[in-house]
């Protein structure tokens, strides 16, 4: 199986940056009207900003020079009004733009999460939880600046740039050309830097994801780490991860910081060209001191927006990989999804048919896990699956819940092929209990009622009593309202299994699948749970995988799974009489007990 470890970088499809960027900005375009409003506000604020120096100039050159106190006062009032307009408009557009940006992040994060929910186990099996997490929270956050700056930086900077260029050309085209000569050179180097930096930032983001995954895994398995005194080893691995994260950052800024230097150089060369061409080639007498002074200040005004644009460009370069990774997930097809026109599966009786089913995992298509499996299970029948570890017992029950799709052949429930019905209607009629019992942070109540949140108090308690969990729940601090946390030492593994059991009971499934569900429960409790199971199994089709034959004996039929298929099938008595594989298994257990 192609799995990705915490220490390795993830593979990713290559998509042109332009496509990614357009796709990102399409989210912005949904807010067209708001954006127009923001743009208008920005224009007003920009106009106010540009008007400021003009008013100051006028105040000094005209009013002060002429000793006009009244004029100075008038201008002061005007300036105050303009500045106030600036402050009000700026405040407004900042809030509005933040609203748009955050709403987009809200949407993307929601979409991403929702999509991840629909992905098949294969997706989860092939990458650590930490890496998926990094995308949902971290990567989405890093789009914030790109989105908001696209309006608040891009627009005013571009406008300033164009405005200044126009004024310069209008005032003196020769000097303007001299000054603008540097622009293509600047653009070339900017491109060069961005090209190199992008690759380096991409590496950095991958290291970021590795670091996240590593931390997540280490803290999840802290018991093992401490018990095996592996702290030093893990510390070393961590230092490597953290070191790579840091050095990849340093590598990226080493290139990216050249931006600032580039602007300084162009500024120097631009100044040189302005005066050299102006004085030596055009001739100082034809230009005039005022124009030179104006151009010097325009030169200053010119580089500021360029600097802003460069840093915006930079932000895009830095963060586009985050967008790429988000879209990469959004584009991962849900292997197991509702087919178009899938029907609701009506209330089923529970007849399950396997018809020449073959199965292989998608990434190892040549290696069949199940080969030509066929059987029919009558409604209400209890089937026990036995056989050596890894023979394919769990695979069979996974196919019934459609956690994976068959490679060939078909599976039907009450005559409905699994492909033809919606996943929700299928799975909500199944109760699956797996080997690893996973409980959510929340109260005992929330966990038990997880599959059916509208269950009544009586139903919940009845279920808990049936699996003999009621007593220990009541002994807990707040009974059913006790909070369970991820690692809480308050519950033993066996107790967790009992809670998971109650959870399945409450969901009242038509088809019940118990995959090693009672492995960590002691015999005494198990015997009591057994009565619960028997009550639960009654009237429902059940598949039970267990190693303990006590659980299995009472099944209607037993399938012995070996070598990718059913080797023996029949009731306990029949199989015992047959003296085959099952017989030997049974004997071996009896022998040691």
């Amino acid at each position, binding site marked *: 199986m192609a799995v990705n470890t915490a220490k390795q970088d993830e593979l990713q499809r290559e998509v042109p940056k332009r496509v990614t960027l357009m796709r990102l900005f399409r989210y912005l375009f949904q807010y067209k009207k708001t954006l127009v409003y923001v743009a208008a506000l920005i224009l007003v604020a920009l106009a106010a900003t540009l008007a*400021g120096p003009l008013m100051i100039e006028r105040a000094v050159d005209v009013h002060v020079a002429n000793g006009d106190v009244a004029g100075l006062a008038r201008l002061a009032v005007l300036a105050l009004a303009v500045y106030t307009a600036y402050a009000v408009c700026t405040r407004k557009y900042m809030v509005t733009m933040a609203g748009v940006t955050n709403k987009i992040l*809200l949407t993307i994060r929601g979409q991403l999460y929702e999509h991840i929910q629909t992905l098949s186990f294969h997706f989860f099996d092939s990458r650590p939880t930490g890496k998926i997490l990094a995308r949902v929270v971290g990567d989405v956050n890093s789009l914030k600046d790109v989105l908001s700056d696209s309006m608040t930086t891009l627009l005013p900077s571009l406008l300033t740039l164009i405005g200044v260029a126009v004024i310069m050309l209008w005032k003196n085209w020769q000097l303007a050309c001299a000054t603008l000569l540097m622009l293509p050179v600047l653009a070339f180097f900017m491109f060069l830097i961005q090209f190199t930096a992008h690759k380096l930032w991409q590496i950095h983001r991958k290291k970021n994801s590795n670091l996240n995954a590593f931390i997540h895994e280490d803290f999840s398995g802290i018991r093992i780490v*401490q018990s095996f005194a592996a702290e030093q080893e893990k510390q070393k691995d961590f230092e490597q991860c953290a070191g790579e*994260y840091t050095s990849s950052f340093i590598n990226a800024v080493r290139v990216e910081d050249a931006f600032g230097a580039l602007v300084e150089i162009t500024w120097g060369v631009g100044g040189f060209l302005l005066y050299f061409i102006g004085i030596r080639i055009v001739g100082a007498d034809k230009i005039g001191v005022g124009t030179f002074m104006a151009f010097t200040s325009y030169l200053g005004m010119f580089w500021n927006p360029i600097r802003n644009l460069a840093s915006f460009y930079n932000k895009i370069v830095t963060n586009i990989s985050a967008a790429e990774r988000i879209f990469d997930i959004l584009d991962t097809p849900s292997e197991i999804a509702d087919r178009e026109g899938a029907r609701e599966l009506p209330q089923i009786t529970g007849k399950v048919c396997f018809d020449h089913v073959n199965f292989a995992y998608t990434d190892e298509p040549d290696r069949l896990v199940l080969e030509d499996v066929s059987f029919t299970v009558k409604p209400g029948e209890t089937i026990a699956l036995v056989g050596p570890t890894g023979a394919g017992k769990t695979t069979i029950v996974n196919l019934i819940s459609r956690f994976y799709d068959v490679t060939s052949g078909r599976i039907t429930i009450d005559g409905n092929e699994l492909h033809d019905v919606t996943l929700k209607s299928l799975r909500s009629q199944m109760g699956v209990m797996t080997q690893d019992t*996973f409980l959510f942070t929340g109260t005992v109540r929330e966990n038990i009622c997880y599959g059916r949140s509208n269950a009544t108090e009586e139903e919940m308690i009845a279920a808990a009593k049936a699996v003999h969990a009621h007593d220990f729940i009541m002994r807990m601090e707040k009974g059913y309202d006790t909070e369970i946390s991820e690692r809480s030492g308050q519950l033993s593994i066996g107790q967790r299994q009992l809670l998971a059991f109650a959870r399945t009971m409450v969901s009242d499934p038509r088809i019940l699948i118990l995959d090693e569900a009672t492995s960590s429960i002691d015999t005494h409790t198990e015997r009591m749970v057994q009565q619960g199971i028997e009550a639960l199994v009654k009237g429902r089709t059940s598949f039970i995988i267990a190693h303990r034959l006590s659980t299995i004996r009472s099944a209607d039929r037993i399938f012995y799974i070996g070598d990718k298929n059913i080797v023996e099938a029949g009731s306990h008595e029949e199989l015992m009489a047959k003296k085959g594989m099952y017989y030997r298994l049974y004997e071996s257990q009896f022998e040691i007990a």
Partner: protein
Amino acid sequence: MKKLKTYMLHYWYLYLLGTVCMVSAIVLDMITPQITRRIIDEVIVGGKMELLMGLLAGILAIGFSRAILQYIKEFTWDSVGAKIGRDMRIDLFRHVQALSMDFFDKHNTGELMTRVKDDVDRVWGVVGFVGNLSLEAVIHTIFVLTCMFRLNPWLTLAPLVVLPVIGVLAIRMENKLGVVYDEISEETAELNTVAQECIAGVRTVKAFARENYEIEKFSRHNRRFYDLNMRQARLVADHQPLITFLGKLMLLLVVIVGGLMVIGGKMTLGDLGAFSEYANNVIWPMEILGWLSNDIASAFASWKKIQKVAKQEPQIADDKDAQPLPQVKGEITFDHVSLTRGGHEILRDVSFQIRPGHTLGIMGMTGAGKTTIVNLLQRFYDVTSGRILLDGVDIRTIPLAQLRASMAVVMQEVFLFSDTVSENVKTGKRGTLSQDTVKWAAVRAGASPFIEDLSNQYETVVGERGVGLSGGQKQRLCIARAIAKQAPVLILDDATSALDMETEKLIQKNLREVSGLTKIIIGHRVSAVRSADEILVLDHNTIAERGTHEELMSQQGQYYQTWCVQARA
């Protein structure tokens, strides 16, 4: 964790270099206007053409020098931040890893991830580029104010009056943002936890077709995250334009007061022009300071959170005079051990002794305290009363590292690292364990047949939760990992629950062959414990029955009943 200052001082030379470059660049920046002034005054107006090339060379030289200085400055500050971030992260991780189980019981993984990852990142920003910009803003302001003061001390009062107001505003914004950032960081951890749980428990979610419920749960947090971010944006919008407004107001004030002074004949027009230019120059640092206080506030919030974790002391640590045992023989004694946690009795008055090379079997009801015995033995928790001895020495006086190294535990919970099979088996002994030992352990654990069937055998990567392997296969790897540790004490905590009978029998036989090993076997099946030298049956947090298989059978108690049930099968 050291103090922030200590981390920073470690790189004092980089800070020095960065600051020197910064100051030089600012000085050069102040010289440029002088050159343009001379070009205009002397070359264009004065007609001294011979000066032109020299002055132009000056402009070029300044441009290039500034480019170099700027680059060194930015790169130095960026990398110093990154390096401090790395150092802090490494220390924090070491610290967290050494904390006791108590701490991990109370803090979930998502939260701890946020501390080690996001919070450190924020602090790194502030000691790096944010610090760079702040310092630059301050130095720039001081330079400009000095120039202004030399030009006209009275008029300098105008910026001196406005700047403190701006400063107060910036601080107010910082404080308010601090509160919001606290909450944002809180909510990030929350969001992380919800997402992490859902991804880790994806099988359960899908089995119950509860995707929509999980999406709704996430949406609520997503929504709250949005609200908090909007609050942050509004706070900035309430202050930032106001700060800029005040800056512009200051400029206006300078021009009006200065203008009146010029009109009153107390100042020349040229001086006013220069002065207003300087005033113009002092605005951007003020504006940027507002933005920076945003970052600084969030870094402060993060630093406080990091500190909170850093201040946690491991509940269980080596005693001051902990003495390593010369050699561990593997004799284990529980002497009237009780454990109470959170007012709840978990274990009451448990006593037993296992001689080196002997085996203790433990059975009992779910939740009776079986795993607690293992946890106490490894000192994940300390006893409330009584004592636990290893080779006759209280385990609290043995170094933790030696204590844990002397026992290999197969836990109930199957946990494998996302790494190769070999690396997993070598956990804790990576440097010293040979490939042969790995194979030897795998054979003993009955894992070698399926490992050799994997695509890359021992070099196959098993996913985070050991994906791609069945429960029984994962369990066998865990057993192999414990065997490979070759510790004098082996503890199997319900370690064969997911195995079929034949495999279990094989492993039991293999383990019996390893002599000289002290073993504790916790199990639900009589078959697993019957050959033990002593068997304890736990019930309601204490020992209910004890003895050998034969003795317990003749007592006809719980053990006997369990045997009856299992034998009947």
